[in-house]
């Protein structure tokens, strides 16, 4: 159901959103999310409960499942499959990178999944897709928090102490979150037009974890080192890891350029999403 102010004339015409600028699109979406905050909270709670309802171990699964991939790499590190990198213990290096990877990959995948699976429901209820996306992001945030707790335990156990500059990490992650959400939103719209997009993205993300400096550094592996310089995942993961464990940003220039492009790309994507939202409604 649309939210309308009484006694205003509301005009519905084809693609009236085309006239909106990037800023007004962002403002509109922020208002929309704010107006639907109660729904977002309820949807998140509902899905959180649904994830464990009917299981014997109950809420345990909500904490255990996000940790599974991390524990695999931790286990392999304990077996000395991975050496120490850049002066950081192998287990810490990898679990920290994997946590960031899942956060970034989630930012790409969630908007795509929501746009694909909820556009019919959104048409029937006028419930904005943006609010559905944010409710799923809440789940991603929860999973990330759980992973961070495990990473902290690993840091303590391996005594790979972070630097004070590591406190800047949340701010440093902002451009990355904007970029990957923008990519997700843009690909989500494209996926309605070309169904192959989600499949291709899934394949890329499966491989991506191995070519983004998540598990091992890439700067001395031939062509991958060149790819490393333009791969946004690698840029943001390297920068985050270096600020936390070395106190400086490796390749600051790359990070700054990527951050600027991230904000621009996010603004463009949000406008495209805003313009296309009503058009993709109801399309299978």
């Amino acid at each position, binding site marked *: 159901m649309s939210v309308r102010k009484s006694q205003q004339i509301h*005009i*519905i015409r*084809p693609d009236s959103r085309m006239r909106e600028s990037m800023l007004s699109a962002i403002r509109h979406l922020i208002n929309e999310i704010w107006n639907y905050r*109660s729904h977002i909270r309820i949807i998140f709670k509902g899905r959180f409960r649904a994830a464990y309802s009917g299981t014997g171990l109950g809420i345990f699964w909500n904490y255990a499942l996000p940790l599974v991939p991390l524990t695999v790499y931790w286990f392999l590190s304990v077996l000395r499959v991975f050496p120490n990198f850049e002066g950081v213990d192998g287990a810490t290096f990898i679990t920290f990178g994997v946590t960031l990877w899942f956060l970034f990959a989630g930012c790409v995948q969630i908007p795509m999944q929501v746009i694909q699976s909820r556009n019919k*429901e959104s048409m029937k209820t006028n419930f904005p897709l943006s609010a559905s996306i944010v409710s799923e992001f809440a789940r991603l945030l929860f999973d990330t928090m759980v992973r961070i707790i495990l990473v902290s335990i690993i840091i303590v156990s391996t005594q790979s102490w972070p630097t004070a500059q590591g406190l800047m990490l949340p701010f440093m992650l902002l451009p990355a979150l904007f970029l990957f959400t923008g990519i997700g939103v843009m690909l989500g719209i494209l996926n309605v037009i070309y169904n192959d997009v989600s499949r291709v993205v899934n394949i890329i993300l499966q491989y991506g974890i191995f070519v983004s400096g998540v598990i091992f550094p890439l700067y001395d592996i031939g062509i991958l080192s060149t790819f490393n310089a333009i791969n946004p995942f690698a840029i943001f993961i390297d920068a985050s890891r270096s600020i936390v464990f070395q106190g400086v940003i490796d390749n600051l220039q790359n990070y700054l350029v990527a951050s600027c492009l991230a904000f621009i790309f996010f603004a463009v994507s949000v406008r495209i999403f805003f313009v296309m939202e009503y058009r993709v409604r109801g399309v299978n």
Partner: protein
Amino acid sequence: MLMQLNTVLEVDHVSKLYSREQISTRQRLATTFTRALMGRPSSPPKKLKSGEFWSLEDISFTLKRGEALGVIGLNGAGKTTLLRTLAGQLLPDKGEIRILGDAVAMIDLTAGFQMSASGSRNIHLRGAMLGRSKEDIKETYDEILDFAELGDAINAPVSTYSSGMLMRLAFSIMVMAKPDVLLIDEILSVGDFAFRQKCLARIREMRAHAAFVFVSHSMSNIKLFCDRVMVLNKGKMVFIGDPEEAISVYEGMKFPEISPTEKRNEILKPQHFDKLKFNFLESYWCDIGGSKKQRFSTGEDLYFKIILNLTFTPEKLIFGIPIWSEDGCYVTGFTSNRVNGLKIKKNKKNTYILTVPNIPFTEGKYISNLSIHDGLEFLSRQENLDLYVVNPGIEEWGVVNIKHFFNEHK
């Protein structure tokens, strides 16, 4: 944008394109995507691609406050698409819609409910979705509860509700939003019959301050509520105007012709019987002594006996007996509403007799219902045994034989 005085809805040459082939839909989306990316405005579709068709084509009308527009048409005529477009759920491909104030759509009543949340929580959530403030929702909360008749179930998760309960809650929330334009799609043809009557009564009350667009397959509801009726056929508006005329246009479009049994069922439905309110109910056509009788002659006195035992004392007991000829012509109706309330004792058999002196019906079979109300609330609506009228040997034409005289004018 100017709107005419008292007009709340203006639909101006609206068209909506659909495609049976996904590829055409995706091609159109790709074009819009490219234009959005380039910052170029979109243009209305000029040529139709393979599989594309206009699900709505060049629809124009206006609606004033207090007016009700019925929309009828065969399946696939574009009725629901029209409502969805008016509600802003779908964008038109051509034309413009102007709405003064709030528009609320009752298309999928239960869509958008948070199933894991309680009924009470959903009242707040749905209220917020309708653009209502917290204070506003608080003010009407009790009214919604009363109307929905859910009792303690209001605190249970909506997932535990029956479909009837869910519909009651949804409708109650919608009507309390006090919209300027209410778009209703067929929802009043499902769920609990008695509650539906209550909904219809509420809609009648709302007519003073709101305009309605009402999609229904029930011609009796359409006739009852609508000032004007639009007939849609394959997306085109083939008629708009007087309800009776619109219904005859629609009836003429129906193909294939329905069988006599289907027609009879169509005429006599909906049937309803609230078991909890009756200990006993028997009714039949009878003679003056109260014995069952189905065959009468034109001009004879006709009787109908009702033996009733209710579990409660109704505030205003009303009987209604609508009569149709075999071919579906609505001949007349008999009602007790004209007398000032019938007396009744609960948990006791009460007998009532309807007397119709000198029945004017011509020869034929007549079908009828007995409906029993308590004021606006329906308690029962059930089919009666057929009534047969025979000709005692007089000339007759049409459905009724009305006493008449010709005299020489002096």
